[in-house]
């Protein structure tokens, strides 16, 4: 991470747009996770997935974890791939409701379409992040001549050995070489 601070670019992710997208997905994960956790029951009902409440809540926990991971890590790439895997699980779960007994078929189809859309975004994001180069960034300025020693580095080495460290700052005698 070249630039510090929560809003700034991350090291090895010179592509700011993708990093912003990743952060957005992180917040999205947390939001969705909280909804799944708190409204597991009504979600299950609305999608015709009754009986799956606990599974939905567990997915909520997973989403929150992934979201935190994306936001907190210096490198969100593995976490975004984690989202892709999660999307697959979600799709599989939703697909289990695709039967003619389901009376919420319209809702379910909308949900499947939405998840498929987000999955596409996740894949694009993860793939772009994975392809970024990890090469060290080049210095932004040339400070090779800034030694700070007017008489040069070699004559600076040990030039202040004459300095007597005051008592309060000295190494304790206990830690000095023990002569016997």
């Amino acid at each position, binding site marked *: 991470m070249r630039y*510090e601070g929560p809003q700034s670019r991350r090291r*090895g992710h010179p592509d700011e747009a993708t990093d912003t997208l990743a952060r957005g997905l992180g917040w999205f994960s947390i939001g969705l996770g909280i909804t799944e956790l708190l409204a597991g029951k009504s979600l299950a009902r609305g999608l015709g997935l009754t009986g799956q409440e606990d599974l939905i809540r567990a997915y909520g926990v997973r989403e929150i974890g992934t979201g935190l991971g994306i936001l907190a890590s210096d490198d969100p790439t593995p976490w975004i791939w984690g989202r892709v895997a999660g999307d697959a699980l979600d799709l599989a779960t939703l697909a289990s409701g695709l039967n003619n007994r389901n009376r919420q078929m319209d809702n379910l189809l909308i949900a499947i379409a939405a998840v498929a859309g987000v999955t596409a975004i996740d894949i694009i994001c993860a793939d772009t992040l994975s392809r970024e180069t990890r090469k060290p960034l080049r210095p*932004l300025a040339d400070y090779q*001549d800034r030694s700070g020693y007017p008489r040069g580095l070699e004559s600076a*080495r040990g030039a202040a050995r004459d*300095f007597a460290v005051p008592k309060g*700052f000295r190494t304790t005698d206990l830690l000095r070489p023990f002569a016997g």
Partner: protein
Amino acid sequence: MRALVWHGTQDIRCDTVPDPQIEHERDAIIKVTACAICGSDLHLYDHFMPGMKSGDIMGHESMGEVVEVGRGINGALKKGDRIVVPFTIICGECDQCKRGFFSVCERSNRNKHLAAKAFGHTTAGLFGYTHLTGGYAGGQAEYLRVPFADKTHIKVPESLTDEQVLFLSDILPTGWQAAVQCEIEPTDTVAIWGAGPVGQMAIRSAVLLGAKQVVCIDRVPERLEMARAGGAITINFAEESVIARLNELTAGKGPEKCIDSVGMEAHATATLDSMYDRAKQAVMLESDRPHVLREMIYVCRPAGTLSIPGVYGGLIDKIPFGAVMNKGLTIRTGQTHVNRWTDDLVKRIDDGQIDPSFVITHRIGLEQGPEMYKTFRDKKDGCIKVVIRP
């Protein structure tokens, strides 16, 4: 006058404020000719240090010309004198000042009760640095009131330029004290975390004091380059394992002396402990991120010394104290006792051993201050040290 004023998290503005007045007989007022932005100011900018109030004037690295003195100055200063102002305000008379432990002066903090509540005892008053340390107006302004000015100043020879002496106010003695309290032996490897201005000064100090090897750890390429120019071997922590490299450079034994010139906003690359810290900091269960401390404790050679100029504000968590104890490490830390070192350092600058102006990368006027805080914080534009000419 104009001054850089703190209004909230990442909100510093160039405002017009009342000129400072003499408030006590030991005060002096200086017209600021140069001042600098410090890494410590970033902790305030990001609001990691508690105790700031909207309207506080920033800045603790300043110098200028005396334009007014109080009645109690007794000839120690006069109008027209050119002084550098140490960031620690000192009375010069209390027990701690007499021992030279100026940054814990017992009298200069006018909010002693706040400091005592936070730290158990009061510490010195500091310029432009939270109400815990006195809430004194800082020097990123056209004028500065210097309390206890008869003691709180550094006189500098006319032959040296402002840029050569300005950093006597803080970062040069800070880097110097960090190295001095390591009591460097000619056989020592000194590892320095952070290649910011303080780290840069610590590198030069460790080289001058005769370390066998100086190693500097950071990840900002141009800062590492400046570290190499000063004679350090560098480790980019974003690319290599700090612990493995330090052990490799010391035949597996670890550096004898470790300096933390990063402080509480340390970053780490996707390690478990850094995520833990960020999460805890986000929900305010931990105020500081001690990643560097943990690394130092782990890699330091047994019976070695940890020197910590990097600033911490409050609570840290998951410190491997078992390693500190069993390895018998010595820990030395503190705000710098600036005036304890400055007479000697003035001589070394005058003598050509060191010219601290090497670290300056940006020179601006007060109006560009707010924008430059951001540039410095984000390490954009090769920014390492900003000097302001009000």
